[in-house]
């Protein structure tokens, strides 16, 4: 049997000190952490709750606004990077487990949690390559135009009643506008690459996103009309007090509007089955065929940040935002992130299950089915609000029960999969990685 030895790396100077400290810390903390994994898990949650509560109660009113803004901007940027990195790692793990593989298992120890950092480091080290015939300024500009608006969208997204950087009256419109600008970056990138495949990807993206913005906006108008405000904070505040107060369960039209919004948001994030702009079996890699290194990472980051952004809107507008399913809780932001991450996970689930739609079918689905349906929802919801007020009280429990049944079915399926994971995992994984 062949064995490969890793070359020994000689550390000197300060890196030697760091490496020694890291080894000592890992020796002591590693076994403890492993033994107390569950305590650490719940401890982090409890500590997070306490931190969230303390910041809202004591710190926020005291510090001057400029300091607070700087901290929030840094925290926001950190959060976006964290979301993207967790998303990339999660995508690989989710796809692995769906495909009876394990996904990354080595980098960083526990289930390869450092994998996306390692990926990022690899990309940063790569050669900065621009094709000779590319349009240099546009080629350099495009990734920024794709990434910056997505991060801007996080400015108005409320993580809790008081956890929002800028509470504006038009925050929902602002998020949609920022997500709409992302298209420009992709078109620029595809055009500037001067590659035919990139151009195809960019044109597909343009036609797909412009069409799906309409059903997306229409299905968001339904809850907007129900609340009477397009401020995300107002919408979140209107849904406190338990899961049956969430906007999704207020009337049947809102219930379906959630699903139409979710489908349209899949298309606007270029997620499968609408991933035509980068469909690898047709267009090699679509609009980022010619991109490599850090510029590619920016497109990648933008995609995952946008995934969480559209899920965050769905969470605030339909799923009660930061409100917990049972009464009020102080840990609002954690509930918010948990719901958003769940929706991101569903996006991944769909991606690794369904084949890709053809471009004409994408347009048919939008113009022939989704658009008329959302219009009906819009009209129906307004009629309901005019005449259906006496049913509302009972409707929310019926629809809420339906939602609970769906969650229950999902949990049952997940539990079945977990119990039978030994049967579902591949023979090879069992043979080569026992106990995984």
């Amino acid at each position, binding site marked *: 049997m062949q064995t490969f030895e890793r070359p020994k790396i000689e550390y000197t100077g300060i890196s030697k000190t760091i490496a020694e400290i890291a080894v000592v810390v890992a020796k002591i903390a590693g076994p403890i952490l492993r033994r107390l994994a569950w305590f650490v898990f719940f401890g982090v949650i409890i500590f997070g709750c306490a931190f969230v509560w303390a910041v809202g109660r004591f710190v926020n009113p005291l510090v001057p606004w400029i300091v607070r803004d700087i901290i929030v901007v840094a925290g926001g940027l950190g959060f976006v990077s964290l979301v993207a990195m967790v998303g990339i790692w999660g995508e690989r793990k989710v*796809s692995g487990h*769906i*495909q*009876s*593989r394990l996904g990354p298992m080595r980098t960083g120890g526990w289930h390869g949690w450092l994998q996306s950092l390692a990926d990022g480091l690899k990309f940063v080290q790569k050669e900065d390559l621009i094709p000779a015939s590319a349009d240099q300024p546009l080629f350099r500009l495009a990734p920024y135009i794709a990434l910056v608006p997505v991060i801007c969208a996080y400015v108005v997204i409320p993580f809790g009643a008081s956890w929002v950087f800028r509470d504006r009256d038009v925050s929902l419109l602002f998020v949609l506008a920022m997500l709409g600008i992302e298209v420009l970056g992709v078109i620029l990138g595809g055009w500037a690459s001067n590659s*035919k*495949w990139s151009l*195809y990807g960019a*044109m*597909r993206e343009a036609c797909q996103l412009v069409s799906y913005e309409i059903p997306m906006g229409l299905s968001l108008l339904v809850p907007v009309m129900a609340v009477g405000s397009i401020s995300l904070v107002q919408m979140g505040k209107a849904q406190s007090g338990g899961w049956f107060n969430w906007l999704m369960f207020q009337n049947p039209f809102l219930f379906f509007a959630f699903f139409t919004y979710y489908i349209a948001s899949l298309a606007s994030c270029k997620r*499968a*089955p609408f*991933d*035509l702009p980068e*469909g*690898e*079996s*047709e*267009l*090699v890699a679509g609009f980022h065929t010619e991109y490599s290194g850090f510029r590619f990472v920016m497109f990648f980051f933008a995609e995952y940040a946008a995934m969480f952004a559209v899920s965050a809107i769905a969470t605030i507008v339909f799923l009660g935002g930061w409100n917990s399913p049972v009464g009020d809780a102080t840990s609002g932001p954690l509930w918010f992130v948990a719901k958003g991450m769940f929706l991101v996970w569903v996006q991944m689930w769909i991606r*690794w*299950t*369904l*084949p*890709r*739609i*053809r*471009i*004409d*079918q994408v347009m048919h689905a939008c113009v022939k089915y989704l658009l008329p349906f959302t219009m009906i929802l819009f009209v129906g919801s307004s009629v309901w609000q005019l005449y259906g007020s006496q049913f509302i009280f009972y409707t929310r429990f019926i629809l809420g029960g339906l939602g609970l049944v769906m969650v229950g079915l999902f949990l049952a399926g997940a539990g079945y999969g977990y119990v039978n994971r030994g049967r579902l995992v*591949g*023979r*090879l994984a069992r043979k080569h990685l026992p106990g995984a």
Partner: protein
Amino acid sequence: MKEIEIHAQPDLLHEGEIASDIRTEELLVNMGPQHPSTHGVLRVVLVTDGELILKATPHIGYLHRCAEKIAENVSYRQYTPYTDRMDYLAAMNNNLGFALAVEKMGGIEVPERAQYLRVIFAELNRIASHLVAVGSYGLDMGAFTPFLYCFREREWIVDLFESVCGARLTYSYITIGGVREDIPEGFVSQCKEFLDFFEPKIREYNDLLSYNHIFINRTGNVGVCPADMAIGYGLTGPCLRGSGVKWDLRKNTPYCKYDEFDFDVPVGDGRFGAVGDCWDRYFVRVMEMTQSVRIVRQALERLSDGPVSAKVPRMLKLPAGEIYFEVENPRGQLGFYIVSEGGNSPYRLKVRGPSFCNLSVLEGLAKNCLLADIAAMIGSLDVVMGEVDR
């Protein structure tokens, strides 16, 4: 086939003064030789009008290795490994085709046990090859997961092959006069275990991919090849049967004890569109896997003791003359045409590769379709470039 009209140049363009300097023309796109969905080094030159394909011309020859010329310089027994490299996903069947051609010419009698072993391994390899075809067709359609499920099952077959002959891709197991060596102990039970595991999995693929609404929309009514067109272009194998022609050499001109087995020849019935569309060609492969499982089960039962190889001299000399012999490969009919002058090696060896003939229909199919349909058509023809170029 869904008619997509090609709009002529609007006359308005030529009227206005401003528009007079606007000129539109078709976009020429090179798909391949390095492209994810061309299954190797196929190059297709596409004439496109936006997303619409006006013409697609396949260009081949990037993997040419002079496999036929080499045969003139090596002895018959030395040539078996070269047949592995033609259709590298179905090396057992290639070995079988060459061995049968040489045996028929030299009048070599093959022992009974070897004949059943040949059937077992040819059919197992057919399953493995169809698994790759089905899985990578899902990949062409953008469904990544079925691909890995199929490769998970194929891995087991490859493990079985490894336990028999030590190789995982290029087996050279079926040689002239029989098979190279006997199966190891416990192989029969392992093989049965695999078949019991594999048969229900086919239903899983159908649930996940074959009957998926999106998948049907992508493949039904796309790339329709009617029966007369299929025969005219010389299609064979699943591509021909997908067009509704019931022609299978294992049934029509049985070789190697195939006449003893009870199995069906599935044909495309146009369930989700016209007969001979991509979905039919795909689904014929899925159904053939079930039939192969049936054949392997019967062959395992009939396996009797005895020698596994006839006595064949190391330097085999064939009598002067010529012979053409065809076998049913996973991709179609693989034919070997051997001209001998009575020496150690053939005077000329010509191979009829099924992928080569199947690929020729691409130009006829890919007219007025969308860009994404090209991937669907190439995938449904299931070409292996190693065999197209030889």
